[in-house]
């Protein structure tokens, strides 16, 4: 099994398109931070929460620091990062079907179940690596450009974390984000096993994420009965890592639902793949 995972690793990471996600984050994240640095935090002046802080507190030091901007950049986890996540899982089966190599590997002794399992593992590894890369880059570039300081979180009030505590919260938030993005990878994967063209699963999965997000975020009572069944209701679980006290019960519920989603989507993918006729 691990031989197959290693083979998938080589196939995935020897290919340039795998690095599109890393390159995009590697380019735009520092660019975004530099832009914030050049604006000197002017954009925060428009934030009502920030105005409230400035009016009601005496601020010692700089709250506009590396921790703060790293926390801001995590908001890209809603839409932007899923765009990059789906690139590999959306292509990992469909791309091979389109290239004809699926035919070649499936005439080899390993079972289809092992082949698909290795691809699932690799999709999750890619998802985790992309988020770890984003976490490290945001903290390092944030530190280099803005320095370290207390992390101020403006959500349902004001929370302030020490540097040490903030780093633990970041690690926890990214761990939860990996689970959440794993579901999005699973959606792309499910579409990938059904077609022989990688573009379809990539666009299709993004459309699903966007539509689900709209339904989740739109405060219409008509959607009240649908929301609990949409994975996007739970993918913001990482935000809970910055709450105080940490709502463990809610986090466990959210993670449980996300893991169930992942298991269901990957399980369905494996089932379809097992029964699929390889015609490409």
């Amino acid at each position, binding site marked *: 099994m691990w*031989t*197959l995972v*290693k*083979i998938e690793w*080589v*196939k995935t990471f*020897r*290919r*340039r398109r795998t690095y599109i996600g890393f390159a995009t984050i590697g380019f735009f994240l520092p660019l975004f931070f530099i832009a914030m640095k050049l604006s000197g935090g002017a954009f925060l002046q428009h934030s009502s929460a920030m105005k409230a802080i400035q009016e009601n507190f005496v601020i010692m030091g700089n709250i506009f620091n590396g921790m703060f901007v790293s926390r801001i950049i995590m908001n890209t986890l809603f839409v932007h990062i899923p765009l990059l996540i789906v690139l590999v899982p959306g292509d990992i089966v469909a791309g091979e079907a389109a*290239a*004809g*190599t699926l*035919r*070649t*590997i*499936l*005439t*080899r*002794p*390993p*079972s289809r179940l092992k082949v698909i399992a290795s691809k699932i593992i690799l999709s999750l590894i890619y998802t985790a690596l992309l988020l770890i890369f984003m976490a490290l880059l945001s903290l390092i570039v944030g530190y280099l450009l803005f320095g370290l300081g207390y992390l101020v979180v403006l959500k349902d009030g004001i929370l302030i974390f020490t540097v040490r505590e903030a780093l633990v919260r970041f690690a926890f938030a990214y761990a939860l984000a990996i689970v959440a993005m794993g579901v999005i990878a699973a959606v792309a994967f499910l579409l990938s096993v059904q077609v022989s063209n990688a573009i379809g699963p990539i666009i299709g999965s993004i459309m699903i994420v966007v539509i689900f997000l709209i339904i989740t975020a739109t405060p219409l009572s008509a959607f009240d009965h649908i929301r609990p069944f949409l994975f996007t209701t739970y993918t913001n679980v990482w935000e809970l890592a910055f709450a105080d006290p940490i709502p463990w019960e809610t986090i466990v519920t959210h993670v449980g639902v996300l893991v169930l989603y992942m298991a269901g989507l990957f399980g369905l993918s494996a089932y379809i793949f097992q*029964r699929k*006729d*390889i*015609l490409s």
Partner: protein
Amino acid sequence: MFSRILKPDKDSFPQGAGDLLIETLRLQKIFKKRVVVSDLNLQVFRGDVFGFLGPNGAGKSTTIRMILGLIHASAGKIKLFDRPFPQQRKESLSKIGALVERPDFYLYLSAQQNLKLLGKMSGRIPDSRIQEMLEIVGLEDRARDRVKTFSHGMKQRLGIAQALLNNPELVILDEPSSGLDPEGMKEVRNLIQNISAQGMTVFLSSHLLHEVEQICNRMAIINRGELLVQGNVNELLKSGETILTIRTPQTRRAREILEKKKIAGSIEIQDERVRIKIDYSKIPQINAWLTDAGIPIFELTPQSSLEDFYLSIVRQADVDARKN
């Protein structure tokens, strides 16, 4: 339905009959209510170079894909190495090397890297074996080049290399000469003969009838998903029509006798030769008629071409299908 299946006869398979490597029983595939393969019974014996013939869309590739587990059969059974397939998939596929239709590889990897990856999927293949295969197919100088820089012919040769990588007992090649120039075709033909000489059994799907005629000892012809004939190539050719050339100084008399006997449709005379198209089994009788009539015969040469045989079989099957 026109069907003429020759049962495997031990005497017919001098290369070691008795050991069935591929056996299909009433194999069927239906795609969206369209029957692509129907009641197909194939038998490939150890040591065979088995030609699998049929027109485009006859169901050859679908059959091969079912034998390799790429496509699920709608009905029927497959046995590989006397084991039920796909139930014992791993054991069977570990003894098989295959090139199915196009030779597709990871274009961004080198030839060597591709073979390494595919080799790992078949167990432990030493680097020396990869090097050996690249040398056999003449790609040792391009081993480190990315496959995307390869011509179709080179990819085809690499495809054969990957099929032989695990030193298989059975090699399944689907149109291995497709897209190759004449020199490349000859190389592939020689390669197949070499691997057969090494004791590997070869299942060869091809459009090139002369290729099958030259290198296969057994063959099957399918059309519209149904098996038309199966058996020893020489015996099948003898069972069909042949062009008989009779060399005699008395060509006109020979023609008169043959016309009286109404044995053939058209009789051609060229120099001292009479050429007629007849059933192979009638040759001794023709010889007797002519010698009884005192006609001196210097040569009696039957020319059975697989092309004639193939076309007569397939056309007859088409006629039968239209009638039905």
